[in-house]
């Protein structure tokens, strides 16, 4: 255990290069996971919406993956995909996003008002055109809510990949642990929270940009109880941004 103050600001100032490298690495691992996870989840969700019986097995399998502790899943992959490879990290990270993303996607589609669906049918839309042109746009808030949760949890999980030779900010935490140097642990944790916060803000902005018709409703606030029921179910309610 080092003596001296709990946070050694001088050390941080001397290692800004390392902070930059770790930031890029952390961002890279997070973005690959979220983008690939989103593409895969969209595919699975469309499958589940079109052929409803596939929803149960999809939820079941992604649910089991979600339950497996991250370190265990990374470790299970090491003998197959190698230590310190991006593939080892990404298979697990992508796997963890699926349950959240699919659940929100399907819930969003289910929440589309019947009147909108009937209007599309009345206009002669085919099933696929109705899905792409009407249902998915109306489900966008729920889909982005899922994306926000998935991204925030992925940013946190990336720190664990330092134990299988990658890590981004997790590298600081791992080193700090080995040297029992609190500054590095706090730095790694704080930067990770900061990145989660910033990406979350970007996604909130993206939601506003792609759902212009909702701006007027936004004045109305979601009651606390409804928002909390959302939270308890693992969704982020519309009006609650990260860390209010």
């Amino acid at each position, binding site marked *: 255990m080092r003596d001296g103050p709990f946070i050694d600001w001088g050390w941080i100032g001397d290692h800004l290069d390392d902070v930059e490298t770790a930031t890029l690495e952390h961002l890279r691992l997070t973005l690959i996971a979220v983008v690939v996870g989103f593409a895969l989840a969209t595919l699975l969700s469309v499958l589940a919406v079109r052929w409803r019986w596939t929803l149960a097995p999809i939820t079941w399998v992604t649910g089991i993956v979600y339950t497996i*502790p991250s370190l265990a*899943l990374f470790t299970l992959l090491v003998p197959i995909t190698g230590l310190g490879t991006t593939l080892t990290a990404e298979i697990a990270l992508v796997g963890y996003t699926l349950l959240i993303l699919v659940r929100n996607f399907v819930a969003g589609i289910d929440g589309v008002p019947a009147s909108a669906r009937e209007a599309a049918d009345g206009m002669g839309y085919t099933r696929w055109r109705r899905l792409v042109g009407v249902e998915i746009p109306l489900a966008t808030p729920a889909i982005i809510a899922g994306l926000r949760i998935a991204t925030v949890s992925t940013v*946190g999980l990336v720190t664990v990949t330092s134990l299988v030779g990658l890590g981004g900010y997790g590298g600081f935490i791992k080193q700090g*642990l080995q040297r029992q140097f609190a500054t590095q642990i706090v730095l790694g944790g704080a930067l990770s929270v900061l990145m989660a*916060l910033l990406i979350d803000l970007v996604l909130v902005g993206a939601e506003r940009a792609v759902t212009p018709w909702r701006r007027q409703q936004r004045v109305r606030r979601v009651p606390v109880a409804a928002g909390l029921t959302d939270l308890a179910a693992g969704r982020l309610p519309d009006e609650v941004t990260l*860390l209010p």
Partner: protein
Amino acid sequence: MSAFSEFVDFISTSENWWGRTGIAHRLAEHVRISGIAVTVAAVVALPPALWLGHRRRGGVLAVAAVNVGQAVPSFAIVSLALPISLRWGHGFGFWPTLVALIALALPPIFTNTYAGVVGVDPAVVQAARGMGMREGEVLRKVELPNAIPLALTGLRLSAVQVVATATLGAFVGFGCLGSFINEGFRQRDDGVLLTGAVLVALLAIATEIVFGLLQRPLTPWLSRKKDTR
């Protein structure tokens, strides 16, 4: 695949099961510390969640608890507990791991229980008051039963997360299933590595299943409603 056969070798050798660094002892330690952490967290989080929910106050706290719990990496919490524990003279292993696990277990229990109480239909609460129930009775006889399903969900989420994160305790010197992963990496032994990973994964899934099974007998009125329909 050689890694797999090394794993089968390791786990089927009886010496690897017994003693202080054996599978049985580490599994027991893993379950014990998880049980203590969830119990302490429930005792600490339930009373304020029920009371604040009853008074319909503290929503911001509940939302903040979830957000902070989600954004702060559990790896950072476990790691940070070590230097703090050393500074206060509590050493390696059990104490830093336990403190980190309690901190992780609190938010899901608090928020879900709070949401369960706040989610009770205000008309039902008013009706209870109209029948002459005192505030304590309203909480105990009306709000609490209605909040139990969500409170149990909170406990389940907590327990699964705690079992998962207890694995990281191995990196602050706590002897648990994660120790096999730690040693497996250090000794470059895939058999030991996979033993840790497989057992941790199975324990987490088992925890999820056990809490899922408990939900029904603890909330019999929910399944009864379906039967009579």
